[in-house]
């Protein structure tokens, strides 16, 4: 009797383990972009299979492949391109997280939100001091017009679509913060139609264009309003920033 009970319990345990082994797995969570050597990168990027729309940006710039990669090192596949862009964003840009979203005709790499000094686009990681005046002009502006904080995130698109941006679509600060977070992205992925996780395993042909978008949010520290997306300006600063970001 005891032996039969033991066998029954063991059988139930094994069946449960088999049946529920797939639960809790994030869609696309097993994807890891690879670098040019074919090995996995740091593994920070997991593809999010949600069909993603690139919202209206603060500034954007179409990039040539040779602007970003060394001569003769153009990525062979979308996966390689994703891996290299990820490396630039994480290493040079010091963005803490990135996430890859499927878009029409390719993919979009979205970085996490980052606070930055308007007077020094490259200086990052000093979150608190980003709101203290660094020079007289900043002091005067902060004193009379209010202390301003600036936040940014980047999107790199690699797609055959010539105009992947949808200017009529606007993004809020809170929504944008979630885009690069694995948990939030995975949660939304469950309720939407999934694309193939192999969408990056295609050759990077001439038809694929690389474009960079920046989203700058400005917050008045004396106001209770959330940071507001700036829809113009910052173009020159963005170009200079990209030049330093893609130091090969």
């Amino acid at each position, binding site marked *: 009797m005891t032996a039969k009970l033991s066998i029954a319990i063991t059988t139930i345990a094994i069946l449960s383990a088999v049946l529920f082994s797939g639960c809790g797995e994030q869609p696309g969570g097993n994807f890891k972009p690879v670098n040019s050597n074919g090995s996995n990168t740091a593994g920070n990027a997991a593809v999010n299979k949600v069909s993603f729309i690139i919202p209206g940006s603060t500034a954007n710039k179409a990039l040539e492949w040779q602007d970003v990669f060394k001569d003769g090192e153009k990525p062979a596949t979308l996966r390689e391109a994703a891996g290299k862009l990820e490396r630039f964003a994480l290493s040079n840009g010091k963005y803490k997280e990135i996430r890859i979203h499927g878009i029409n005709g390719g993919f979009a790499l979205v970085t996490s939100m980052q606070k930055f000094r308007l007077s020094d686009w490259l200086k990052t990681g000093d979150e608190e001091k980003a709101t*203290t*005046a660094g020079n007289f002009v900043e*002091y005067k502006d*902060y*004193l*009379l*017009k*209010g202390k301003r904080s600036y936040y940014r995130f980047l999107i790199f698109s690699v797609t055959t679509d010539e105009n992947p941006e949808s200017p009529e679509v606007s993004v809020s600060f809170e929504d944008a913060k979630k885009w690069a977070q694995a948990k939030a992205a995975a949660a939304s992925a469950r309720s939407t139609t999934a694309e193939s996780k192999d969408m990056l395993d295609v050759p990077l042909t001439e038809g694929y264009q690389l474009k960079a978008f920046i989203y700058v949010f400005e917050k008045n520290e*004396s*106001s209770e309003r959330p940071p507001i997306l700036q829809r113009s300006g910052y173009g020159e600063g963005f170009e200079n920033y990209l030049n330093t970001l893609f130091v090969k």
Partner: protein
Amino acid sequence: MLSMGRCKTILGAIWAVFFLGLFILLILQVGGNKYDGNAGAVWSWFLPMILPTMTLIIGVFLLDVQNNSIQEAKVNATVFYLAAGGSIIYLIFLSWIFFGEPYTDKSIFTAMKEYGTPISVLQGIVNSFVGVFFMNKK
């Protein structure tokens, strides 16, 4: 002993300079929409910090203009130095909250909350010094 008329002018000048400076700064800040609709909270915090002493000084000045009662009086030097020195320290502290804000990582509202208690204590002490100064004439 010091001349009350001269000491009174010095004390009045100290308060007038700081008051006008901060008042003009707040007007400019409101003009620049620094507080984004919350300027009322800043005015409500700032004015009680400075108006009680200012009205006392203005009142004494007006009284003196009417009957010249304290112009020739003498006042204890220690009392004057306490009133003047305390006033300067207090007003510099108050000014730093506004003028120093761009150099800190705090918003003005945070600073108002955090410094509210110590500055109120200091204000009470300085007000008593100023009150004693005007009462101490001989």
